[in-house]
């Protein structure tokens, strides 16, 4: 359970990124955060693993305060939160397996990871994760030899190998073509349903958001303007979140 209480982010230049966000996300939810670019989607997502610090308020994950966690506690909390990025953020020159294993560094001592002494269980876990996203045969291929969709699956496998309980996905399909978009979103849904991992996804495409989410959070200018089950997110609601009619490029349309 993620409790976000009065979360506020004010940048050093005075811009308000998030304004008193209050919400609770339950284990197993598939939440999609929508809003125009600059509405604070990415800031909110990155506040949940503290890649961005909030300036006021508190975020509590499974009873532990993320906001108050110090270095080591913070790293342990992050270990349970996987993250998927728009640009995959893989080490392009390393093999797929190495990339997936890099998700497990926080489980072991620094020395052990630096020497590359992964336990066999970890390697098995990594192969299983690759299996789950459908690319088991790519384990020893260099990451930059894969297509965009395959690279995004590697990053999903990385989050799986991390044995994360929550996965944050920041525009995971923004760099992909429509067909691969569906495959990646299907992967995320399957993981959510089969493993019960909480999914929090920022999305640009409204139709995809409606199709995959169980719950929608709408942001506008850093404020939470909608928070409810996907059934309640009507066209009028989206028009409000976006302050205008929905444009064509905000629909994937496939």
């Amino acid at each position, binding site marked *: 359970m993620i409790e976000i209480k009065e979360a506020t982010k004010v940048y050093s230049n005075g811009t308000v990124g998030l304004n008193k966000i209050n919400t609770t996300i339950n284990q197993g939810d598939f939440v999609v955060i929508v809003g125009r670019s600059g509405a604070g989607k990415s800031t909110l997502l990155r506040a949940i693993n503290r*890649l961005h610090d909030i300036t006021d308020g508190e975020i509590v994950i499974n009873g532990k305060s993320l906001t108050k966690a110090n270095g080591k506690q913070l*790293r342990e909390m992050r270990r349970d939160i996987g993250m998927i990025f728009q640009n995959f*953020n893989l*080490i392009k020159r390393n093999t797929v397996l190495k990339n997936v294993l*890099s998700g497990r*560094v926080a489980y072991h001592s*620094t020395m052990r*990871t630096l020497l590359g002494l992964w336990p066999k269980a970890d390697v098995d876990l990594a192969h299983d994760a690759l299996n789950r996203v459908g690319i088991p045969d790519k384990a020893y291929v260099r990451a930059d030899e894969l297509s965009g969709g395959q690279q995004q699956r590697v990053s999903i496998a990385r989050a799986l190998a*991390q044995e994360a309980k929550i996965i944050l996905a920041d525009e995971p399909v923004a760099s992909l073509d429509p067909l691969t978009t569906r495959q990646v979103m299907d992967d995320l849904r399957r993981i959510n349903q089969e493993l019960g991992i909480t999914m929090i996804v920022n999305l640009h495409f409204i139709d995809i958001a409606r199709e995959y989410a169980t719950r929608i959070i709408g942001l506008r200018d850093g404020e939470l303007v909608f928070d409810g089950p996907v059934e309640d997110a009507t066209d009028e609601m989206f028009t409000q979140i976006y302050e205008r009619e929905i444009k064509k490029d905000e629909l994937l349309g496939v």
Partner: protein
Amino acid sequence: MSLHKQQNKKWRKWIYIAIIAAIYIWAFSQMPAFEIQAMAGEISRSILNGLFNPDWDFVYDPGGEDLLRGLLDTLAIAFLGTIVSAVLCIPFAFWAARNLHRYKFIPESGTFILSVIRTFPEIVMAILFIKAVGPGAFAGVLALGIHSIGMLGKLYSEAIETIDDGPIEALTASGANRLQILWFAVVPQVIPAFLSYTLYRFEINLRSATILGIIGAGGIGTPLIFAITSRDWDRVGIILLGIIVMVMVLDFLSGLLRKRIV
């Protein structure tokens, strides 16, 4: 453009020309008249003669000092010096990389130290090391090893500055600590550039190593300076040929390797 501005520009041009002329008058003022010594022509001829009739016997001499041994020593000095600096410069490179620090003064101080090291000529460094550890190849290795930190550290830090931040973010998000982030997100991205720069520096060090012997820091430079001072031009010829061939061959090999790395 107004007339006034145009005239201003003309004036400026003349001032620049005057300054440059003054600098050159000053630069020539200390130069002695260029008078060719009576011997110069003859010596040049014998040098050319030596280059075209090198002392082939010097190439391999099982008993004593010969060209191949000298070149091998030179190669060893350059290689080891490069390895030493490639290792020693790493902490400096991370220190001087602007994208890894929150406060500006940290990378700036690192950059400054690297530029001081770079400015310190390797020959001067070699002389000092000879005073400390005695003449020989070891002094040459130390001199190259320390001097090269300046350039390699700078190039390495620039390589670090151009990396993609994405993997750093990904590793941070998965709970990695600072060292793990460096090792898993930064190091794999910079290794090809590091290798390529190291090879490039090796090419430079090989040239430097050929002259270290002139001041007694080992390698082919020692027999070369002896041959020059004793006017044994046949021997100078064969040593020069040896150096040129070795440098060109290794440049070629290193170039091939560098192409493969990228």
